[in-house]
């Protein structure tokens, strides 16, 4: 489903060239739960930006469900992100003073889904992350950290994306709520068959995935299966 070939990303700053990615190639199949792990500066964020269609690689190709995304324009990338990718961020990025339902609905504002479908989708997503329906009408700033991140995951699900891309989703959470969030991802992967790519620098978090791609200095260091039951 994801096929990256010879991805190179060079950042230019005056005369300085920084090679954030040096010739990275890998594939991710539908229904996989993959962690991309590496220390800061390893290039994992750059890789996430490219996989997430937020940025174009300097060279190389990136096929998402058979479509070459590497050279699309900004607006076309926005459409890809809207249709195929669900983002979960470390900082949650919910709109404050806005209800849970409205937050989850946000991606639907940017596509052509009929209005009467929206509510159904939102409820379906919130149920999938096990958020207490009593909280659905609360404002996002009235929720706890674990609840907030589950709302954010529901927002990532609402468009029925091909890929859920989670960037350090537990980075702002304590261990217990972090585990709860990871259980949510596990369940989405196991029961609902969602493809999940997790970006993290914490080995314990990466262990929740089925496969770990280790990135270091802009290259794939190793690509291993974990011994999670599958």
């Amino acid at each position, binding site marked *: 489903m994801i096929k990256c070939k010879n991805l190179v990303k060079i950042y230019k700053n005056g005369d300085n060239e920084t090679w954030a990615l040096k010739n990275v190639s890998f594939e991710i199949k539908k229904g996989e739960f993959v962690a991309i792990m590496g220390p800061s500066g390893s290039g994992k964020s750059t890789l996430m*930006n490219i996989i*997430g269609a*937020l*940025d174009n690689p300097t060279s190389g190709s990136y096929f998402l469900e058979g479509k070459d995304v590497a050279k699309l324009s*900004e*607006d076309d990338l*926005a*459409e890809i*992100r*809207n*249709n195929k990718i669900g*983002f979960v*961020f470390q*900082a949650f*990025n919910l*709109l404050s*003073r*806005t209800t849970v339902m409205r937050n989850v609905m*946000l*991606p639907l*504002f*940017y*596509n052509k889904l009929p*209005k009467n479908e929206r509510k159904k989708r939102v409820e379906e997503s919130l149920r999938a992350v096990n958020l207490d329906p009593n909280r659905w009408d609360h404002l996002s700033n009235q929720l706890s950290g674990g609840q907030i991140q589950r709302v954010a995951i529901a*927002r990532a699900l609402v*468009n029925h994306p091909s890929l859920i891309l989670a960037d350090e989703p537990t980075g702002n959470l304590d261990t217990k709520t972090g585990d709860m969030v990871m259980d949510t991802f596990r369940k989405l992967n196991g029961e609902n068959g969602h493809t999940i790519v997790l970006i993290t620098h914490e080995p314990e978090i990466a262990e929740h995935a089925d496969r770990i791609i280790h990135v270091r200095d802009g290259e794939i260091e190793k690509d291993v299966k974990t011994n999670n039951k599958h």
Partner: protein
Amino acid sequence: MKFSDLIYETFISIATNKVRSSLTVLGIVIGIASVIVMIAIGRGAQGSIQDEIAKIGSNLLSIRPGSQQGPGQQVSQGQGSAQSLTMEDITYIEEGIESVKAVAPVVSGNYQVIATGTNTRTSVTGTTPNYTEIKSFEIEDGSFFTDSQVNKLARVAVLGPDTVTDLFGEGASVVGEKITIDGVNFVISGVTVAKGTQDDLIFIPITTAQQYLVGDEKLSQIEIQVNSQEEMDAAETEIEALLLEKHGIDDPEEADFRIMNQADIIATASSVTGTLTVLLGAVAGISLVVGGIGIMNMMLTTVTERTREIGLRKAIGAKRDDITKQFLYESIALTFFGGLIGVILGYVVSFGLEKFIGLASDISGFSIALAFGVSALIGIVFGYYPSKRAAKLNAIEALRYE
């Protein structure tokens, strides 16, 4: 993004920053309100000047003698010094010009007027009964003199209300009383209705004035009323041609008379007040621009504050257009609300000025439409740059913005 979604988002966003939004909107409110008030006052002034002119009479042409310049004389004497207008001209005009409704000759001058024990100096107008119709004079008490009194050189006088007050005291009943004008005895036959202007004067038959006061046949003016506004210019041209012919003058440059068209006077007055209106509007317009800059300032702050939100919206699929629209709608909404409140405020203030201070004001539908249009336009103009700036933000950097 659907229009209804945009409206909702705009509303939420404005409601979130109530204090800041209202303060910013205040700039537009004041700008729009002052534009409306200023234009209303300008138009009010224009209206009252036109009313005053209309009181003098409508569709008037007035002919005065030209300057005297005899053969071989290089020195021109003042306007009206020529004794070129005669009673014959009145006949020519009455008989020769179709579009003329009424013609009245005028001989005027300032004379000492004496009643029992008091005296005053005022303008005495010798004319015919036609004059009342042409100049919109009405009679309050008694009657105006008649044509037969004119023919008989009757020594009767019609007084303006201020003259009555000067000579006899306020509200005195004076019909039948006697006065002397320049030593000649007259009987008061009537008093005119107060007009606000032209209230201190005396009318006497033209023949009497020529015989007893002036001592010659010259006319100081001919007043003409034309049938309709549309015929004014044509009538002026025809009269000029007729009088030139009758006076035996070939070159219009050497005419011994001058025709003044009331339409020209109104046009002059209107252009003065029109300039005043534009000036007042422009001053108010400046405050509107200042208000617009306030909007821009606020929108820039909003964009900076909401950088992460913009990043998020872009990450989940908002295109540049969506972001541009979102912020543009916000600034248009602000200025539109400002415009709405400003129109109401402007209306109330104009009304108050007229009601309590007596300053004439005339609110035009045009200025209200203009105010709305301008306020929305300001929203677009001053919201454009901030919203473009928001749309250009890089999603990745915006998401990381602290």
